[in-house]
């Protein structure tokens, strides 16, 4: 039997979900891979928000990180390298009723998919985008990525990478229509969770860059930051993150930053040491593409027919009536 989408909404039964309702399979990431922490945070979020698994979508490209949807017991779309965002946009346009998440790697988003990334920010469609930035191409076995710090030794840059790293936060904050930008690190799970949660609740294109460890190809890269909590700059604000007393004690480098302040956000975005963590920018007033350009009202057969006949009329030559007069509408 076919049930209409709207009807289905009405039939929402209150169903409560547990963590395992969102868990699917055993992740095949390396031990210590930061992707595991991101998965745990997202599964927790789904449970806490009680997202209906059948109404929730994870869209990804290709890469280690893009395996993400396979480990969620929701609908998933593991597409092609670099194109997660346009796929997600199509889904959201067709089905604004779905919760759409995107998981993308630094190669996926910032290199092969860079054009889509820029334009996705402009479209500002309501979705939560996690950039799993391990500063390396993981799946293809250690090639430099656009976000690799200069000097990164990789299989394509054995003497160290040549170019300065691209800064995903400054790029994102430089695009017109940007509405939500945050940064998290995989090794502070509590904050990671809070940030993804805020991102999810923001209506618009929520971009979270997650600095993600890749122990396989870049072991110990972030060790200095993990060892010294003072090298993490926590951004706090009543409209952004509020820290638990415990965290506040550990991470003493803090800044009260208003997420509406884009100029300061851009300055913070370019900091690399300390690593800023928190919500850099959150503007709830940017219109979403799907709200200003959409399919419109539910289209019944009668409605489509009427529209089509009106279009036909524009081009129709009516047969001549017996009295030689052209019929009305001719």
């Amino acid at each position, binding site marked *: *039997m*076919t*049930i*209409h*989408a709207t*009807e*289905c909404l009405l039939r929402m039964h209150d169903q409560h979900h547990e963590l395992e309702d969102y868990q*699917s399979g055993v992740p095949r990431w390396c031990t210590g891979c930061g992707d595991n922490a991101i998965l745990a945070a997202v599964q927790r979020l789904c449970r806490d928000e009680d997202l209906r698994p*059948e*109404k929730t*979508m*994870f869209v990804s490209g*290709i890469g280690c990180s893009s395996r993400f*949807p*396979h480990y*969620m*017991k*929701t*609908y*998933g*779309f*593991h*597409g*092609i390298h670099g*194109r997660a965002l*346009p*796929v*997600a*946009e*199509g*889904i*959201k*346009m*067709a*089905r604004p*009723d*779905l919760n759409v998440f995107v998981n993308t790697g630094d190669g996926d988003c910032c290199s092969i998919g860079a*054009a*889509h990334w*820029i*334009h996705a920010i402009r479209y500002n469609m309501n979705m939560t985008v996690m950039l799993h930035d391990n500063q390396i191409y993981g799946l293809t076995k250690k090639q430099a990525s656009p976000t690799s710090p200069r000097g990164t030794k990789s299989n394509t840059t054995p003497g160290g990478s040549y170019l300065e790293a691209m800064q995903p936060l400054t790029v994102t904050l430089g695009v017109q229509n940007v509405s939500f930008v945050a940064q998290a690190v995989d090794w502070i799970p509590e904050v990671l969770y809070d940030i993804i949660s805020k991102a999810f609740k923001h209506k618009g294109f929520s971009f979270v860059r997650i600095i993600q460890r890749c122990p396989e190809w870049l072991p110990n890269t972030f060790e200095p930051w993990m060892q010294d909590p003072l090298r993490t700059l926590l951004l706090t604000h009543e409209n952004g993150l509020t820290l638990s007393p415990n965290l506040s004690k550990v991470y003493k480098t803090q800044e009260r930053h208003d997420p509406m302040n884009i100029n300061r956000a851009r300055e913070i975005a370019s900091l690399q040491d300390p690593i800023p963590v928190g919500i850099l920018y959150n503007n709830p007033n940017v219109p979403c593409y799907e709200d200003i*350009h959409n*399919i*419109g*009202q539910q*289209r019944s*057969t009668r*409605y*489509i027919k009427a*529209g*089509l*006949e*009106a*279009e*036909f009329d524009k*081009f*129709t*030559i009516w*047969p001549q009536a017996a009295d030689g007069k052209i019929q009305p*509408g001719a």
Partner: protein
Amino acid sequence: MTEAAVKTRPPADKPAPAVPRGKTAKNLSGHIVEIVSDSGEGAQRCGQALGAIAARMGNGVWTVEIIPAEIRPPARSVAGGSGNRIRLGSGPVTNGGNETDLVIAFNEQVLLGRVRTGELKPGCTILLESMWRESRDNRIAASYVETHDQLVVAGYKVIEAPMERECRTIVADAKRGKNMFALGMLCSIYSFDLQLGRDQIARTFGKKDASVIESNVKLLNAGFDWAESNLEFKYRIPATRSTEPQMVIDGNTALALGVLASGMEICAMYPITPATSVSHYLSAAFEKVGGIVHQAEDEIAACTFAIGASYAGKCAVTVTSGPGYSLKQEGIGLAVMGEIPLVIINVQRGGPSTGQPTKVEQGDLMTSIFGSHGDAPKVVLAPGTIEDCFYSVITARKIAETFNMVVVVLSDASLATSQTPFTRPQFSEAWLAPPIDQSEVGEGQKPYDWNPVTGLARRFIPGQPGGMHTLTGLAHDELSHVAYDPDTNERSLRARSHKLAALQKTLTPPPVFGDPKGDLLVIGWGSTKGAIEEAVTNLREQGHKVSSLHLTFLQPMAPGIKEIMQRFKKVITIEGNWSDDPNDEIIDESNRRYSAVAMLLRSRYLIDVDCWSEVRGQPIKPNSIERVLLEKLKKK
């Protein structure tokens, strides 16, 4: 007609001179007329209006736009001619026909452009704007005189028409309005009802104020009167008005209406000639009917956006032409692998690379069938007429959703901009798809439950409880789990391939045009249909045993084609894509490249199918085809 147009229709109290003054109209069964000008002088509008009037008279008509490659080419340039070519007939007209019989040219340079491309019939009548003879610029005057005299020597019947001078008695700037003067001349020449001309002006300028309509009607009348008094000839092409309502649109509009009629409501695209006007039309229509045109950042995004929408339950269409089609290839493979329904319209243009953006070619068939890496079976169909353009999109969506496949609709630059009347479609609810299925998926059901025979599987759409799975472009099993084992890989490849076979079983053999057997069978596809059938008709009238077969489905091919071919002594395809000429010095049977359908037929049916192709950027003319077929008949 718009309400405004009805209101502003000029009173009929000033009837046109119905009887030609001292001239009798010569009856013709058909004629081809062209009007060319610098771009911006309105020749296209004049041509379209003439086509519309002819259609209202009940004549068969086929209009072809003459498009310069640049938006604003320099004035008076050989390559800059813009206008329209209208083929008129007593009965239905199915193609642009052969060379032109009569031309109205606003200057001698754009006329030269037409002469040089070989579009004019030897000795044809030319009505040439005469103002250039008196140009104060000596070079222009000299060039005019030189060209004029050359054309006369070459045997053309050149008549100098003082269009500018006559128009100036009515309007200050003849540049705006000369086209309506020309329209009046043509109404006189072809004995068209001048009232239809006036109505057409009201329709065209309906949104402007009454004075605009009034001055254009004056120009129309003046042109008519000038032709009545100054031209020695007059024609009449007997017409029979259709008893059914007719629509006059071009192929791209037909495709766009097909999208509306199919119930699709998302079109993702990136602008590209000659496909763009499909999305222009849709953008406006969707605002009224509901639906969106998404102008993506590039064709890769357009394709994957459409894939996302289709996957989520709203079958989407993406519209493009050659270069854009190439960019979509990886996305196409994803849709094939994920078994996501998707309609792709490719309005072919000249290739490879940027090629000839405004010119016709049928060069994308092979890439449509075999494009994207690996084995990526998809459906390819090609409309043969403007009417087909409309219905093919509806069919494409149905197939896409029934078989969860990519369906490519191959139109081309010729269908895109040509116009001809066809019977107004009768709306059918069956055109539309049912609403998105959101029912619960039962325990144990699998997202790719491939039928062992047909390969078909049900598809779960986000929102369906119990159907959660992750679609992947990686090799996968019935559960959509990534699977690299040899058996699963072969099983899934077989399933995706067998869907084509399953579709093929539902097709019926295409009808043979002409006798079911004979000496020569001509096979074609796409926009060449009308020209091929016209050539075949002419040859049959001369007693030759020639028939033709038009293929709408290129992948899969309908059953029965081999049997049809076997009933003929020789088989040849006529196509607008490259094939080597066997007479070229370096070419022999071991290295000759055949055109696309010939290659497909040869490999599939092991029949010695010959081919002839023309890739000149122009629609193939019926008389070229006749010549080729006569030669083929003669050969042993």
